[in-house]
């Protein structure tokens, strides 16, 4: 049962990713990315990371995806068109297909050979607790306190930097 769910969600993730690769409409690829992120959250649940799955839904789907849609909308060239559906089409051409396919396939087979050669020995220990939130919280507040604080400062810097960069976008205001 678990395996069937795993295959179902991984098929969703991979099909969504392949659709992003082949489509030429950036709007479609952003919505396909939504499918991918939800599928990855389901894979997190299947590997017993409930808090990470919720964080994935909130950060990626709720934050990053909305931001990407805004970015797509704000950076489209203005064109006058009588057609009402032109807002649904943002052209993003695919180039260098041979390079991308070749390098991607080579990398994939390299990773596959590494996975097949890697002889992973199971420690016979698995997560059995219903939720990992308590362990995560305790670890974040004790042994991983410094990275936690650094992440907070990094987010603050990113916020200030993004606000500064996005201000005065028109060249005459420089």
């Amino acid at each position, binding site marked *: 049962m678990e395996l069937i769910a795993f295959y179902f969600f991984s098929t969703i993730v991979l099909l969504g990713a392949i659709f992003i690769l082949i489509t030429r409409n950036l709007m479609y690829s952003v919505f396909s990315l939504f499918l*991918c992120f939800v599928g990855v959250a389901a894979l997190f649940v299947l*590997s017993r990371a409930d808090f990470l799955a919720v964080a994935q839904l909130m950060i990626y789907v709720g934050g990053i995806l909305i931001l990407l849609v805004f970015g797509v909308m704000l950076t489209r060239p203005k064109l006058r068109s009588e057609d009402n559906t032109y807002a649904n089409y943002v052209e993003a051409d695919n180039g260098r297909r041979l390079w991308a396919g070749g390098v991607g396939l080579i990398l994939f087979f390299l990773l596959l050979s590494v996975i097949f050669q890697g002889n992973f020995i199971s420690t016979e220990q698995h997560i059995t607790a219903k939720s990992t939130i308590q362990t995560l919280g305790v670890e974040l507040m004790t042994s991983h306190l410094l990275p936690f604080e650094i992440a907070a400062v*990094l987010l603050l810097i990113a916020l200030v930097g*993004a606000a500064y960069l996005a201000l005065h976008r028109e060249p005459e205001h420089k």
Partner: protein
Amino acid sequence: MIPLEHFLFVAAALFCIGFAIAITKKHLIGILLGIELMLNAVNINLIAFSRHDPVLIQGQLFALFVMVVAAAEITIGLAIVLRVFGVHKSIDPDQLSTLKN
């Protein structure tokens, strides 16, 4: 119990597709999409390995930090893309060749 290798296969395929997207797209935001997919593939790997570490779930902690860095990266990336669009009126990375030569 899903075998560990299955997670690794899915993550490897997702990483390679994201890599191909980052190479292929002639649009700066398309490249950002590819980078996000690659970060997600790495997160799947980390969490799959962290299943076998029930006491200190270090893989999940690391994946949390990866998510934080991804959020910071995407905000800065979008701000830069908006700025580039304001200056060059184009977001095709092939046409942004001011620094060439």
